[in-house]
């Protein structure tokens, strides 16, 4: 029942918020709805802790060790983002960047987006999964073009077309899985994870291999795997900052989650290592291209969009390696990255709003203008490039160990990519944080609360991973890994 609530709350919230329109209540309403969702997620977590994984609503919804923490993560980041977006979007309206009339649309779409992602995570039905992903795409397309700027429209258009095509291919893949399954399970259960997973050994390998190709190309477009990533930088850069945060921090995770689920299915059969190899290939290419693309960026948000490509590639690579260690590391990486990257976008958005530009060549001396903002920017950049004691370091360390064990040849490539990424990002960060300040001191924005919280959590991930979380990771690794 609680599962149903988790997805219904944002849906109903969307309607209400849409009705509220541009009233100021919209902001608090947004926070309230997200808080309620998060509360429901907590209830669900408690149930899982008591009774382990369970399904609901005629087996259409289910929760297991693989999606429980993703649901919590999504609900949590959705909450913090709504908190951040209150202060931030109010400022945007005040600065005249955004027409207040669109706030209703903004809040409604935000909640629908959250709803779609939660549905995608919780649904037990690969068809519903696809529908949810499509819904997420449509809602974000509107959010990306919220400012109605030419660049924004272009980005949204690119996003719409590419992800649309991608999802279409994913649908074809889903249909093929359905072929493979319905001879085994019959038409009614052939789409249910729980059933599919139990018979994954008996699905026709030939079909599953082709299906997996379509699925990884399809959902991979949404994860932003190179060379399917071309929509990602624009979409992250042009949308409002809170949306960049949830896109990078949540949507990519959800898409990757879908791929991982299908990998678990596809690698059940005789040709078990083909999906892994595909993911390793995509992952490495994305890591390298992502890292090297960082070098040439001038736009603040584009820079970190490319870093998302790199990190998603890293996670994909680790999932591809398979095995308990690598999968554990990959899940940890997903968690740490979504927390860190969202806090990075929070901070950057604040910086861009303060400096009045996204062009990094024109931003200097933030630490002098506002120490708190400057140090948060420094800290979150350090966290995203994987320096200890932040969580990403932990996951990258484990991934390197796994790589050295499973695919030693990939270690130098990973090292090069990590080094380049550090150099490219830190060069920019230093130039922005330090230097002579050009402008008056500004008061510490209240929106910094969100990144603070995230950074604290990431440090916790780096220093002492809670045992529940670790247990979930291990269980999920058992579920996914061949």
């Amino acid at each position: 029942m609680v599962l149903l609530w988790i997805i219904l709350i944002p849906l109903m919230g969307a309607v209400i918020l849409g009705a509220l329109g541009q009233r100021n209540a919209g902001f608090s309403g947004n926070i309230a709805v997200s808080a309620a969702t998060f509360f429901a997620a907590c209830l669900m977590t408690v149930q899982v802790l008591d009774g382990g994984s369970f399904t609901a609503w005629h087996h259409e919804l289910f929760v297991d060790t693989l999606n429980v923490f993703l649901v919590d993560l999504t609900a949590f980041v959705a909450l913090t983002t709504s908190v951040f977006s209150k202060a931030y979007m109010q400022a945007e309206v005040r600065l005249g960047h955004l027409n207040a009339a669109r706030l209703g649309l903004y809040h409604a779409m935000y909640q629908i987006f959250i709803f779609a992602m939660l549905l995608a995570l919780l649904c037990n039905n690969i068809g519903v999964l696809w529908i949810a992903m499509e819904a997420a795409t449509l809602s974000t397309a509107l959010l990306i073009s919220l400012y109605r700027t030419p660049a924004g429209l272009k980005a949204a258009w690119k996003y719409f077309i590419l992800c649309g095509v991608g999802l279409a291919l994913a649908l074809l893949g889903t249909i093929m899985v359905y072929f493979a399954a319905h001879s085994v399970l019959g038409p009614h259960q052939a789409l249910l994870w729980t059933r599919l997973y139990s018979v994954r050994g008996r699905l026709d390998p030939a079909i599953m291999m082709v299906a997996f190709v379509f699925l990884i190309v399809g959902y991979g477009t949404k994860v932003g795997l190179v060379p399917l990533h071309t929509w990602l930088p624009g979409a992250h850069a042009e949308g409002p900052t809170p949306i960049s945060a949830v896109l990078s921090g949540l949507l990519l995770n959800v898409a990757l989650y879908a791929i991982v689920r299908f990998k678990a299915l596809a690698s059940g059969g005789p040709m078990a290592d083909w999906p892994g190899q595909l993911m390793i290939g995509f992952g490495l290419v994305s890591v390298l291209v992502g890292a090297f693309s960082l070098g040439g960026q001038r736009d603040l948000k584009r820079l970190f969009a490319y870093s998302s490509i790199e990190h998603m590639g890293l996670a994909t690579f680790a999932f591809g390696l398979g095995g308990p260690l690598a999968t554990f590391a990959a899940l940890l990486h997903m968690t740490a990255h979504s927390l860190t990257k969202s806090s990075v976008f929070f901070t950057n958005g604040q910086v861009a709003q303060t400096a009045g530009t996204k062009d990094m060549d024109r931003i200097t001396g933030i630490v002098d203008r506002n120490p708190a903002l400057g140090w948060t920017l420094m800290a979150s950049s350090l966290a995203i490039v994987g320096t200890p004691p932040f969580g990403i370091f932990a996951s990258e360390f484990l991934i390197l160990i796994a790589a050295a064990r499973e695919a030693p040849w990939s270690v130098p490539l990973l090292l090069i990519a990590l080094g380049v990424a550090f150099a490219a990002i830190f060069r920019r960060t230093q130039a922005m944080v330090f230097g002579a300040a050009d402008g008056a001191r500004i008061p510490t924005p209240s929106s910094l609360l969100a990144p603070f919280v995230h950074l604290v959590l990431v440090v916790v991930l780096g220093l002492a991973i809670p045992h529940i979380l670790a247990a979930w990771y291990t269980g999920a690794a058992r579920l996914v890994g061949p």
Partner: protein
Amino acid sequence: MTPWSSPIDLLAALFLLVAFAMLSQRRLANLITLYAWQGTILTFSIAIVAYATDSAHLYASALLTGLLKILLVPALLRRLARRLDVQWDRESLVQIPTVMLIGLGLVIFAFNAALPIAAAGHIANHAIVGIALASVLLSLLMMILRATALSQVIGFLALENSLIFVATSVTYGMPMVIEFGIALDVIVGIFILGVFFFHIREQFDSLDINHIERRED
């Protein structure tokens, strides 16, 4: 159900033909008509499958598809085309004959790629898979080669059509929920596209993608 597999194969062949026609067609109105034809073929095939397996939900889905893809979507597209007065697509980069050849290559490739699935046996009407795959690739090619947003969208819809085609005619349809969901997504998609077009229009006063792409990012 062997007696019914031959008409479906025929429809499949027609489907592929239409896909080719769309690839070569540059006049927008005709493109929309062709799309409507594709919808018709789709509806028929679903109806046949429904009759063969007399499953109620397939009848429903045939009805739905008919409404959506023969009447509603083409009407919407025509309206858009009129409101935005675009009749002709810009001369595409590649000459039509070359396009045809590429398309042919794609079809051959698709058939080969589909072989293992067909070999997997237990599916009725193997040929369909290959044809569906081929038309997917063809519509992708069309999206690549077309220069105005509207015709790109038509390509996208054609792509989606071929998916439905394969879904219904090969496995006698997915469960009801899914089909409704997919249909819903399509409708919403079209509406959002409409909204988009007008924004794009007011920003770039043209639907020519190159105008959009001329701006650096």
